[in-house]
């Protein structure tokens, strides 16, 4: 097992090239934010007429060099459909996509060698062993790292003689990740990389992804685990019904939902709940729920009010917003796009 301190192993293949390009971009004042840029991407399944299905309905965002950008959303939100266009597997129905400055579909031959792609589901012949799979995949890459090294990155070194069909779901996921890392990619696409992993393997995968980021790799990730996005993402977007409905840093997206304070008024209390600035109040019997954008201000005012009237507030609970609440609010909402971007003008709905 060797999960820590391998900056030498992690580095992307043409690190020197990458750095040179980066410096060149700095010197001539090029916009370095756009390792990936997506403008008004649309994707449609089925016929062009009324019987088709719009999986992606006008999505725009960009991913900066060296950051991790996460796409969140319920099943069918359009995450994988978006990823497949970025990966160059299919052309967009409309809109433009640039990866490393090129069209990933039409200029596949130029872009691909710099990408690592981990699909949502495996795709290796079940009758090959782990080592044979690695040898095959390495044989198709221009500048692969040694197979043993890639397997070691995901702790599969001791399973190299085992047939893929005999691996556990989590081990297959790790083999997938190892193959995506085999070409020392500059840009890594991970579609639900930790699905089926036990908590320990998930933590280790997070550690590995962080090391890759530290070494300069750009990562686009989809996940169903909100704590995974919170843990890893520099910026994220929540998709719903083919559109981006929230985007920003994890903290910004979380803050798009109001904070909540709930309590119970004492039995027999006749005091009306005060009107507090910027606060929505809902009262059900004795239970009161306050929703506010400024938790501290509202909470201070509330407690001051209760003190001045000698009220004991039962079951008092105050919670700041979380990504999870923002996510569930989106999943429950209608399909209207809500633009909550602050300071993220390049991440637009």
């Amino acid at each position, binding site marked *: 097992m060797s999960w820590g301190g391998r900056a030498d192993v992690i580095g992307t293949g*043409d690190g020197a*090239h990458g750095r040179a390009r980066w410096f060149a971009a700095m010197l001539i004042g090029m916009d370095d934010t756009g390792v990936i840029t997506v403008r008004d991407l649309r994707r449609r399944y089925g016929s062009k007429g009324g019987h088709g299905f719009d999986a992606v309905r006008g999505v725009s965002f960009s991913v900066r060099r060296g950051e991790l950008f996460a796409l969140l959303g319920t099943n069918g939100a359009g995450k994988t459909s978006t990823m497949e266009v970025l*990966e160059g597997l299919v052309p967009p129905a409309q809109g433009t996509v640039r990866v490393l400055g090129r069209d990933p579909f039409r200029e596949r031959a130029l872009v691909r*060698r710099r990408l690592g792609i981990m699909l949502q589901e495996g*795709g290796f012949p079940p*009758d*090959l062993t782990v080592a044979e799979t690695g040898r095959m995949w390495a044989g*198709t890459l221009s*500048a692969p790292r040694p197979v043993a090294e890639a397997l070691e990155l995901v702790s599969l070194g001791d399973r190299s003689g085992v047939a893929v069909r005999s691996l556990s779901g989590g081990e297959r996921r790790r083999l997938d990740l190892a193959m995506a890392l085999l070409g020392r990619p500059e840009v890594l696409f991970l579609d639900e990389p930790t699905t089926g992993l036990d908590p320990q393997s998930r933590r280790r995968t997070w550690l590995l992804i962080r090391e890759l980021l530290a070494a300069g790799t750009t990562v686009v990730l989809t996940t169903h685990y909100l704590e995974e996005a919170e843990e890893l993402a520099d910026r994220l977007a929540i998709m719903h019904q083919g559109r981006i409905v929230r985007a920003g840093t994890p903290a910004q997206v979380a803050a798009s939902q109001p904070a909540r304070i709930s309590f119970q008024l004492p039995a027999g209390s006749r005091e009306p709940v005060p009107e507090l600035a910027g606060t929505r109040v809902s009262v059900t019997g004795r239970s009161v729920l306050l929703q506010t954008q400024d938790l501290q201000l509202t909470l201070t005012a509330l407690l001051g009010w209760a003190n001045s009237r000698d009220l004991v507030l039962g079951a008092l609970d105050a919670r700041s917003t979380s990504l999870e609440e923002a996510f569930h609010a989106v999943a429950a909402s209608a399909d209207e796009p809500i633009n909550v971007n602050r300071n993220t003008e390049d991440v637009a709905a």
Partner: protein
Amino acid sequence: MSAGIVTMSRSRQSARRFAALSRAEGLLLRRNRIALLNALLLPVVLVYSLKAFGGLGASGSRDFGAMLVTGLTAFALLLAVYCNLVTALVARREQLVLKRLRTGETTDAEIFAGTAAPAIAVAWAQIVVAAVAAVVMFGMARPANAVLALVALVLGTAVFALLAAVSTVVTRTVEIAQVTTLPVLIIPFALSGLLVPLATLPEPLRSVAQALPLTPVVELMRLGLTGTTAGGHHLGVAASFGAAAIPVLVLAAWTAAGAWAARRWFRWEPRR
């Protein structure tokens, strides 16, 4: 290291990717016992069926060796190339292997060729074995025009590999392949001239037979190996090129149509 990679030519990299894929596919073929057994039993089945029907035997036992090689070429193209490849492509598609391969640097053509290579290698090995057996056991004479036999083999392989790609469009699972491959197996074989000499067919049927993909392969093989036309006329080398024109054109047309249809309809991932 990276300097070496830059100087490595495009075709060498392509050959490297092709080799890596065909090596893996070859490993899988060797692990599939039933497919291998089929490949080994094929020559035996062929010899018996030819003795039983004897469609080609009409021109005399002197040409039995050539007949054996011609018949085995047809069988190899149908079973070892076409059937094996439909099964292999459908299996890799349903296992998401084709989709995964497309996420790498490998081109679509390399993926197809790499997957097809072991099946084609088996087919050609069977034909070589049959040719050696024909010379040693039946005293087959030197081919009248070896170029035509080679053209038949190469174009025939291309046609049936492409037909396999097209057949995967209507083949959802490996099991269904046993049914979906039947039309291409039966119709071209029945009218190939191997079972019933073309000359004995009534007219509209004879023209149809000549337009099917296996008939020109059989005609070219017979022409190349023995210098004999379907009608039984012996030709010299120069005249045999002339007689080969129409079968070669038919095969070229099938190749073009197969390539077009495969590009148009081939699916790289399962239907959802």
